[in-house]
């Protein structure tokens, strides 16, 4: 349940519909399903297998494979911590919007309201003022994350019993409401009608693999950590299928939630959906387009606004604490730092770094960090994970371990996918991203800014993983 909560997050609600729309609508579903079954599920099985076999946090699991690979484990737990730092900023915006939705405070000018709320300066280079609502939201969310985690897995179990089914039910309610609006079918038609010519475009396939990869919380040490808590006789393969399909199913459903409302909005404004295209990307969709559509609802607008943002918050909270859990577990395992202390320290550090996104240039800095962490950081970790586990370790041993506890036996095809297919796809993704970023610097920003804001966190985390490996635990020092 916790793993489902981790996989299903904000990315399912706003990222999937936009990526799908941008890559051929219904035609995107074909590469998406191929990616899910050839990379997503095999990698999910791999991470489950490693965590369950090692029964420890990622650094220790990699250390058990070979002492010199411990850094790779630290790398996988540090990267989601970086993600959490800006992920919780978006949750803080949701928190404020949840309150604003009670009186539809954005009115009919959601665009300018969002800019005023952030104190947006329009440039990453202009600092601007600090947004107090964002800071208050950050304090609230980081405190909730700490409160859920500090007592360990028992409390996580209780929390996810509420935060996994609740947002799904709310999403279903929103979808039903959306589909009963005039113009909704136009939006759904836009979402589902395939444009098969897009299947010949390599970028569409890359986008599908990237979406599956990031949406399932792979290469972040999260699934390895959660699998280490599973009972010895847990069916690993079945669990991997359930989590992957629940995640993809939520994304598919969110497509209807969003596109039905987009169709309604287009009809109301008397413009075609094509003209809304640029408005349905990332933060714009959640904080401008959707609120605008909510304001136009004929009745109970505040109610539907409120449940939309509370659904986002509850979807996000599981993902947020699952990003902190691997690092605090790893600190606890290596240096015997109490779980409460490790979680507290990481939450305070995370909160302090989150503050850099609370100024008027926060949105732009967040977009830069997200772009580099998602396109480079996670892909590189996934690639290293496949190479270490596929080539430096006898993969058949992990397959045997998985098959011992699973009803559905995985064959040699799985080893082939982990050794060849997934690394080839990730390597291609990486090369394409590097070439694109060199030829066209992200958003046309100056190089020094890209290096400072986008590349520095990646390099720091990489270096830190070696430092953490080198610092000896008490047991190692005594030996």
């Amino acid at each position, binding site marked *: 349940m916790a793993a489902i909560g981790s996989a299903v997050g904000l990315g399912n609600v706003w990222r999937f519909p936009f990526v799908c729309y941008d890559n051929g609508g*219904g035609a995107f579903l074909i590469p998406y399903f191929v990616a899910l079954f050839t990379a997503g599920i095999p990698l999910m099985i791999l991470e489950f297998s490693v965590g369950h076999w090692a029964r420890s946090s990622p650094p220790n699991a990699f250390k058990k494979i070979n002492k010199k690979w411990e850094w790779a484990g630290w790398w996988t737990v540090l990267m989601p911590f970086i993600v959490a730092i800006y992920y919780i900023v978006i949750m803080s915006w949701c928190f404020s919007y949840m309150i604003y939705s009670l009186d539809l405070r954005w009115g009919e000018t959601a665009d300018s309201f969002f800019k005023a709320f952030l104190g947006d300066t329009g440039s990453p280079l202009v600092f601007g003022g600090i947004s107090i609502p964002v800071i208050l939201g950050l304090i609230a969310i980081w405190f909730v994350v700490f409160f859920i985690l500090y007592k360990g897995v028992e409390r996580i179990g209780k929390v996810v019993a509420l935060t996994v089914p609740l947002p799904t039910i709310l999403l279903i309610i929103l979808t039903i409401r959306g589909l009963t609006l005039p113009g909704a*079918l136009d939006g759904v038609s836009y979402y*589902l*009608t395939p444009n098969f010519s897009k299947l010949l475009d390599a970028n569409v396939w890359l986008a599908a693999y990237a979406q599956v990869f990031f949406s399932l919380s792979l290469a972040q040490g999260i699934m390895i950590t959660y699998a280490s808590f599973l009972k010895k006789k847990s069916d690993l393969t079945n669990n991997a299928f359930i989590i992957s399909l629940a995640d993809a199913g939520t994304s598919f459903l969110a497509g209807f939630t969003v596109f039905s409302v987009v169709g309604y909005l287009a009809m109301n404004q008397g413009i075609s959906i094509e003209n809304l295209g640029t408005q349905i990307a990332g933060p714009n969709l959640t904080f401008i387009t959707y609120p605008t559509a909510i304001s136009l609802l004929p009745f109970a607008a505040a109610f539907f606004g409120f449940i939309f943002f509370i659904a986002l918050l509850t979807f996000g909270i599981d993902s947020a604490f699952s990003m902190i859990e691997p690092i605090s577990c790893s600190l606890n395992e290596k240096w015997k730092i109490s779980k409460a202390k490790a979680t507290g320290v990481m939450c305070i550090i995370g909160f302090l770094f989150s503050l850099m996104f609370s100024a008027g240039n926060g949105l732009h800095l967040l977009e830069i960090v997200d772009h580099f962490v998602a396109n480079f950081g996670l892909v590189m970790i996934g690639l290293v994970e496949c190479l270490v586990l596929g080539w430096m370790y006898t993969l058949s041993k992990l397959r045997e371990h998985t098959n011992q506890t699973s009803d559905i036996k995985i064959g040699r095809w799985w080893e082939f996918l982990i050794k060849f297919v997934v690394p080839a796809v990730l390597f291609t993704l990486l090369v394409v991203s590097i070439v694109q970023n060199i030829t066209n610097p992200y958003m046309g920003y100056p190089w020094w800014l890209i290096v400072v804001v986008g590349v520095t966190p990646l390099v720091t985390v990489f270096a830190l993983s070696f430092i953490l490996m080198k610092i000896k635990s008490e047991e190692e020092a005594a030996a």
Partner: protein
Amino acid sequence: MSLPLSAIVMLVFGCVVLYGGLAYFIYRALKKR
């Protein structure tokens, strides 16, 4: 306006693979308990 046939095919395909698959694996997990 009605949905084009190709959109209906994608709808059925998505529902069968994702929700059908999810229901099947949840059923297997419950049966094992």
